[in-house]
């Protein structure tokens, strides 16, 4: 083996090295490109959110970084180890994936399921490890139940416990809360937070924007290509110019004259009769000037407010752009 150059031992995985580095990574299937030219880095201990619509390539990227699929082009390191065929075993020992579907042996009990995987990871103290993982997901009392007798949410939690067994450096969670009730989701969120405190890097794909906004240090939006990456608040700023929402008692007769040419106002549009959205470059300059103009024109102003955009707006805006681009 050429293990000296590329073997397991040479990748100590130092703390200052990013947990995941991805450069120009693509995966093409025979008839479809799952994702194209994706580049990003995930720092150690970071919770990194991966957002994207159905079919965006999220699962495929998790499988690629998890060494199940070979990338078509590009380069990556995972848990400090280069993503090469000969490093598959080393990477798999350091990471763990909770797949989209829990994938449990339904005719086995919860603890039998975990014991099998503890064996596959060659762990010592199997009983203790299994108990610890089950305690982490609050399932210790169901250890002896057959998996077929568990509800969807409970199965999801068993899958999460299984992903924790080998105490991974990098944990990939593919839509961990899909199909869970709010209480169960909150428990998963709590678990993610506590894992982050222990320094585990978490790569989380999700459809739930509130989840990404709340949990993630940074998020990336993928739609075959990487559309945007940054902190949730950064993304909001990057994508949306600040805006003002003006409500008047009566629809304005001459809105164009009133709004155009005001300080820091870059554009406007009527949302509904008497409701106007103004794109502004500086909220503090624009608001007083607009109010002054409206009052001077004798308009009854009901309210004037800064519009707030959630991550959801950012997301929908981006995906809409893609849909339109494709239509053209």
């Amino acid at each position, binding site marked *: 083996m050429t293990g000296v150059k590329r073997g*397991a031992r040479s990748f100590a995985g130092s703390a200052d090295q990013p947990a995941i580095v991805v450069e120009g990574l693509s995966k093409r*299937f*025979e*008839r479809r490109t799952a994702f194209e030219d994706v580049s990003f880095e995930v720092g150690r201990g970071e919770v990194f959110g991966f957002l994207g619509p159905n079919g965006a390539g999220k699962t495929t990227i998790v*499988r690629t970084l*998890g*060494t*199940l*699929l*070979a990338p078509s082009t590009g380069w990556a390191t995972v848990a400090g180890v280069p993503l090469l065929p000969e490093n*598959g*075993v080393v990477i*798999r*020992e350091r*990471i*763990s*994936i909770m*797949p989209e*579907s*829990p*994938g*449990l*042996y*339904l*005719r*086995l009990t919860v603890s*039998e399921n975990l*014991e*099998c*995987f*503890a*064996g*596959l*990871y*060659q762990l010592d103290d199997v009983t203790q490890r299994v108990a610890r993982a089950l305690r982490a997901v609050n399932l210790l009392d169901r250890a002896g139940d*057959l998996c077929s007798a568990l509800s969807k949410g409970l199965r999801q939690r068993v*899958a999460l416990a*299984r992903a924790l067994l080998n105490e991974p450096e990098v944990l990939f969670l593919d839509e961990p809360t899909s199909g869970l009730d709010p209480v169960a989701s909150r428990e998963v969120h709590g678990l993610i937070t506590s894992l982050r405190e222990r320094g585990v890097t978490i790569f989380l794909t999700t459809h739930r924007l509130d989840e990404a906004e709340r949990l993630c240090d940074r998020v990336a939006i993928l739609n075959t290509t990487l559309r945007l990456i940054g902190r949730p608040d950064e993304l909001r700023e990057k994508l949306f110019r600040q805006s003002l929402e003006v409500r008047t008692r009566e629809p304005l007769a001459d809105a164009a004259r009133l709004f155009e040419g005001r300080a820091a106002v870059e554009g406007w549009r009527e949302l509904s009769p008497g409701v106007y959205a103004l794109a502004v470059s500086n909220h503090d300059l624009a608001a007083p000037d607009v109010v002054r103009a409206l009052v001077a024109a004798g308009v009854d102003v009901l309210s004037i407010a800064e519009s707030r955009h959630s991550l959801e707006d950012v997301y929908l805006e981006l995906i809409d752009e893609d849909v339109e681009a494709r239509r053209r």
Partner: protein
Amino acid sequence: MTFSWRRVRAIAVKELRDYRRNHFIVATMTALPLIFITLPLVQVFNAFGHLNRTNLNLHVGLSMLYMLLIPAFMPSTLSAYAIVGEREQGTLEAILITPIRREELLIGKALAALIPTLAIAYAVFGIFLAAAALFAQGDVVSAIFSGTHVLVQLLFTPLLAGWGIWVGIAVSTRSRDVRVAQQLSTLGTLPIVAVLALMSLNILAVSAAVAVAFAAALLVIDLLAWRVVASWLDRERLVSGERGRRSRLEAPTAAVTNFEVVGAGARISLVRKSNVVAELRRQPFRVVLDGVDVGSIATKGTLEVPTGPGPHTLQVRIGRYSSRTVRIELADGEVAHYRCSGGVIWPLYVASLLKTDLALVLTRA
């Protein structure tokens, strides 16, 4: 990274635990031995009284041969589940993201089929020997225990099981449907059963030389099959179903009209339907007119191909599988109606693996 028996054991233990609660498997494991011990016992107690020494020896051998059907059939039933069963349960991905090596997975699965087979086959044989020793006539007993009968039985049990296991797992890695895997893998044991049948009908004399040659052949096949099947357990292929599959369906999906249309022209109208609920091949067919790919046709779809009068050939294909080539003579202005469908019964499906133009059916409607 070295081979780990720990991981092999984890897989095998998991499988055995799974069998225990699988009613179908429990039923098979109970029924098979009961079926295959009854006849030999009946023969040993009743039918052999009138035979002379050589004939007796032969018949004892044959009734023991009959018990070899247990290791011939049982493992293929078990191992047909090995991969496709994991796939259907959605557990395959969970297994593949662990550090397990493909050889470890394979051996774990093979042991899980081999252990119960050996246990049951040897137990049945033990019961047979014990019953014979206690209750059969003296010359029958000595016929059983003299010569090489016992040795042959002990030796062939694992060799036959090996065949069933590799056939089962091989089919299992390649199929997407548990039912099809079951049928194909049972079918895959037929060559072995055929040899056993030839021996028992005395067409193939069971001489020592034949037995040794047969054992040697099985051993070689078992060892080769292990390498081949291991190479099929590739993560990429198991997860995405792709690798080694060339891009077969690259031709355009719209009908092309690069045909010289003479006079009023002629047309071929093709519908795709089958009389049964499930076709075994469900992908779109490519339609090939005069050797040129002119379009595709999906299940329950139709396709109209404009062409000229005169002689033509027509065929439908999926990858390497196809229908027979049909010859057509079109008159000016004629519309010829054809229908096509995928193979629907598994003997034909199996035959089409060898003779690929049996896979699809194309007939004049």
